[in-house]
């Protein structure tokens, strides 16, 4: 299929349909409103169901229901809307159900601004709901990668039985880039024999959340963490950019990594041996990338559109908090290339 020029928000909607998703429950919010807008017209054409719920809280619980019935189901929102969904996300995680949640982040906290941000890292990666749980978090840096990751998210969700969050931002939602829809599932997926499809004469199925006996609840948690260990072992993903001779490494994801990529070209021209480790999964965090390159690297330059929410994970990954320098803009500001170049020169100055 030839490439088409699509807005990120519409492209992720199409990606969901291509991945076999037939159910969307959500509520509009800038800068992701084109996702529900697109799906409201396109899902019915393929026999799917689009519901604009009365609130984000209602939408995520409809997702919970559809996931329990074995459907491929999507919701999307932007930062404050995702904050509202946290209770439901915790319930779906605890029930071990597959669902895909897209967050086109904007500046926060609270209602914040409508412009792009990356300050929901902690909410997505550390868990914005109660209890011990993780969701897989994928961080696309382009419209094409957003498409691929949404399609992959459905497979990962089904394979592991967990919600998958696609954590992008308003810029990726609003910009247009060429895309094609040729992702192919690499996992062998089992039929959803556990789904609540109506008992009839069949066996009893149950989706549980309340495990009131403490010892049973602990065992339940431990089962989750066996699954999480598998995900951490198998699903870490990252891009290495100009790392072969690098003495310094930027660490940046999503839109900020795009700015960093351009800044690196100027810094390379000025003689700095600098590359980038770009996490594509934020949970599991790509610790393996740091294991691989850490001995070559004098400093990590963490760049985010937040006040530094990823810094602790980088420190954990490289096992040396003194090796990290941070530069960030927040509240809806996308850093300019020159700011990153100046930051890079300040950190690497005289050490070409």
């Amino acid at each position, binding site marked *: 299929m030839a490439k088409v*020029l699509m807005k990120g928000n519409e492209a992720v909607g199409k990606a969901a349909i291509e991945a076999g998703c037939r159910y969307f429950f959500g509520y509009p919010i800038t800068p992701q409103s084109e996702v529900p807008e697109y799906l409201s017209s396109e899902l019915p054409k393929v026999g799917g169901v689009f519901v604009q719920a009365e609130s984000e809280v209602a939408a995520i619980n409809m997702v919970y229901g559809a996931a329990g019935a074995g459907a491929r189901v999507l919701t999307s929102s932007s930062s404050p809307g995702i904050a509202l969904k946290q209770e439901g996300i915790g319930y779906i995680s605890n029930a071990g159900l597959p669902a895909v949640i897209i967050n086109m982040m904007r500046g926060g906290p609270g209602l914040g601004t409508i412009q792009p941000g990356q300050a929901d890292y902690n909410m997505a990666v550390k868990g914005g709901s109660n209890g011990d749980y993780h969701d897989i978090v994928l961080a696309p840096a382009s419209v094409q990668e957003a498409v691929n990751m949404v399609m992959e998210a459905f497979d990962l969700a089904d394979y592991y039985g967990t919600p998958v969050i696609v954590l992008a931002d308003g*810029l990726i939602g609003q910009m247009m*880039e*060429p895309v094609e829809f040729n992702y192919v599932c690499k996992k062998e997926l089992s039929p959803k024999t556990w789904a609540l499809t109506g008992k009839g004469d069949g066996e009893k199925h149950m989706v549980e959340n309340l495990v009131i006996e403490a010892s049973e609840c602990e065992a339940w948690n431990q089962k989750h963490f066996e699954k999480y260990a598998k995900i951490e072992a198998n699903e870490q993903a990252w891009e290495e950019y100009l790392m072969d001779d690098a003495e310094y490494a930027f660490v940046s994801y999503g839109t900020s990594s795009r*700015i960093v*990529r351009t*800044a690196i070209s100027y810094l390379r021209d000025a003689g700095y041996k600098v590359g980038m480790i770009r996490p594509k999964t934020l949970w599991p965090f790509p610790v393996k990338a740091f294991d691989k390159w850490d001995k070559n690297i004098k400093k990590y330059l963490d760049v985010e559109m937040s006040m530094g929410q990823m810094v602790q994970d980088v420190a954990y990954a490289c096992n040396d908090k003194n090796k990290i320098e941070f530069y960030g803009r927040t509240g*809806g500001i996308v850093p*300019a290339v020159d700011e990153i170049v100046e930051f890079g020169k300040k950190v690497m100055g005289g050490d070409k």
Partner: protein
Amino acid sequence: MNTQRICCAGFGGQGTLSMGKILAYAGMLEGHEVSWCPSYGPEMRGGTANCHVIVSDEPIGSPVITRDANCVIAMNQPSLDKFVDILAKGGTLIANADLAALKEDRDDIQVLNVPANTMASQEFGSAKLANIILLGAVIQAISPVKVESVDDAFTHVFGGSKAKFIPDNKKAFEMGFAFAKNNK
């Protein structure tokens, strides 16, 4: 061509976003990497609107242009004032001369003043196609994509019931192209 960074800016409603979209589409049809990045925010209605288009042979880093732009198309004065300084040395400023003018003498950039509103009004009876006249001027001035690719892009962008707009758009494009050629 390596990388062409082009900023299209004007009032909301002047068609700066569409102009950029056609350019990006043409670049994609030629097989280049492209990005089209709009401003979005509380300032849109009645205020300024701009988009940044990059056409490149390499994967595109920052889709937001903050330096080294090859071309700035300013459809009004606030846009010219805001974006002229992101031009690279030797870059091209294309000003909609009816509504924008560079206030200082600059010998480090090329300046092309196109009276696009007047040209559009005389030919089509309204200033609506001023954006496409300026697009024609861009393609002549810095050749980020081929003329044929813009023609192809028109048929993609104006599909179905919008096909009736193609002849006027092509005419406007040719007017801008010819103007740029004759006013080097």
